[in-house]
């Protein structure tokens, strides 16, 4: 593997025709929202720039990110990016195994020092010195720290790597910790979702590989181009929300008419992701399109934020599981009752104080 190898050479050696390559460049430019002329720039970059290797590590996770990724709607994008990655290291899908495979990690890290991208699926559990996730006989957190040390940037795939997801849900017995809390000296790009959308994953990778820079990130480290808006903002059922037309039960007339799922606890209004525009399975549908509310899987701690089916979700701050309106309504009722009681005592006191026959005014 000569160090001057370009992306284009890698793709051609994988049997991809130039025509297919140009299509991939056009698709990437389009999916990133770039001007049509940018496709040529992408092609030029991929033909001339040395290839940036990607190492793909797996911590505590369910591999749903990989599953999503290899089902990228556009097979070409998948083939191209995947072939670039599998060349190096991805312990779930690469053919090599054992110590030889693990040795690749060290080789790439040494050869491309400071110049490779580390993609992490899942997160490291920190309790018991990281013993809850062992890769090649050692805690995953050690592997993560070692490989991240010389990486140019780190991509945190999915809600596991970005926020912690289900393994960090209360009470988080293994102390599963998101990647950006462990790797603090490198830029970490969060690509949350359980899993993230395939096209979003390939586009983020393609952007970083071709432009050699990080995509613009929001406050929580997510690429703005895909996480800049809520599901709600681009939902095709939004007109029903604004009109005040809601599904009240799963089998009612409103459900059949495709009204807004707000009252069924849809988390679209509080979830940042591209599902309502990019959709899933090659643009076939997304949860709301199939008549079910959004679960908010790309939001931090979505397992611990109350029911998937309540609009006003339960909170636990008061020692009981209840929602804010029940807690608040109870408080208001108690205050109201106290006021009535106080008023009654005041009236009695006043009546006694003035007494019959006495003059008013004290």
């Amino acid at each position, binding site marked *: 593997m000569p160090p001057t190898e370009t992306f284009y050479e890698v793709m051609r050696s994988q049997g991809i025709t130039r025509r297919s390559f140009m299509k991939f460049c056009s698709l990437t430019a389009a999916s990133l929202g770039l001007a049509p002329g940018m496709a040529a720039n992408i092609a030029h970059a991929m033909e001339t720039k040395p290839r940036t290797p990607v190492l793909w590590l797996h911590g505590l996770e369910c591999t749903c990110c990989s599953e999503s990724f290899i089902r990228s709607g556009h097979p070409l994008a998948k083939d191209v990016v995947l072939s670039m990655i599998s060349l190096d290291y991805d312990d779930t899908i690469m053919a090599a195994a054992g110590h030889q495979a693990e040795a690749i990690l060290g080789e790439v890290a040494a050869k491309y020092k400071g110049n490779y991208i580390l993609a992490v699926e899942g997160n490291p559990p920190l309790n018991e010195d990281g013993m809850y996730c062992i890769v090649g006989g050692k805690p995953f957190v050690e592997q993560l720290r070692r490989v991240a040390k010389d990486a140019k940037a780190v991509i945190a795939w999915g809600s596991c790597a970005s926020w912690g997801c289900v393994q960090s849900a209360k009470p988080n017995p293994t102390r599963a910790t998101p990647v950006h809390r462990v790797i603090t000296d490198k830029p970490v790009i969060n690509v949350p979702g359980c899993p993230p959308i395939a096209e979003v994953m390939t586009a983020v990778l393609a952007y970083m590989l071709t432009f050699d820079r990080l995509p613009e990130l*929001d*406050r*929580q480290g997510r690429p*703005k181009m895909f996480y*800049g*808006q*809520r599901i709600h*903002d681009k939902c095709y059922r939004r*007109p*029903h*929300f*604004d*009109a*005040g*037309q*809601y599904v*009240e039960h799963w089998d009612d007339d*409103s459900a059949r008419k495709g*009204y807004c799922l*707000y*009252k069924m606890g849809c*988390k679209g*209004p*509080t*979830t940042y992701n591209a599902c309502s525009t990019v959709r899933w399975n090659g643009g076939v549908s997304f949860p709301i399109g199939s008549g079910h509310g959004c679960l*908010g899987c790309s*939001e*931090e*701690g979505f397992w611990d*934020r*109350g029911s998937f089916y309540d*609009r*006003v*979700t339960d*909170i636990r701050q008061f020692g009981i599981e209840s*929602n*804010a*309106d029940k*807690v*608040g*309504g109870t*408080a*208001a009722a108690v*205050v*109201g009752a106290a*006021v009535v009681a*106080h*008023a009654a*005592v*005041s009236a009695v*006191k*006043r009546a006694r104080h003035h007494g019959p026959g006495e003059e008013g*005014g*004290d």
Partner: protein
Amino acid sequence: MFHVEREVTGVLVGERLPAVYVYQAPVRLWHWVNALCITVLAVTGYLISHPLPTQPGEASGHFLMGYIRFAHFAAAYLFAVGFLGRLYWAFVGNRHSRQIFTPPFADLNWWKEVLFELRWYLFLEKAPKKYLGHNPLAQVGMFFLFTLPSVFMIFTGFALYGEGEGLGSWQSQAFGWLIPLMGGSQAVHSWHHLVMWVMVCFVIIHVYVAIREDIMSRQSIISTMVSGYRMFKD
């Protein structure tokens, strides 16, 4: 007749007093506009989280939730701008205009007055005192049940509003940092609801106490917020 008024507490001693101008016109105007805003905000806010029954017909024929949200946002802007104006008035207005922002927590005498008022409300004191502005207990109540919650509601409200306005909007840039800090949009929604109920409790207490004091203490309360003058009954 002329009476010396004790500094800070504003408690009055002595016999008959002339009417005193307490609440200046901007404060009174703000009070009533603010009361209207809070009413609209609480009602529309509740309806946003618990929407009315589904409207019949086509979506193109209705904009019910849109109007409810519009009312909420319009009242919210008025509330926020009013609060800023009220804050400004605390600097340029009379000394009573500062009371709801600056309770003198370091003043021991003031705390004694708070205790006295507590005893008065627990029926342990026979006769109430006279105060020019808020009594010290009312000041504590105002500060913790109105002033601080208002700031909280303005901040969380604009943070949530910024989500709809988009990442580049000034609302998102100025207040959006609150959302990750508080654990995500859903959590901010929950807190926004809870503090709404704090303000509902405040309104219940505020209205009750104002009426009760008007009847039972020795000074005017409700009419003062209309005319600006505090009258004393003895």
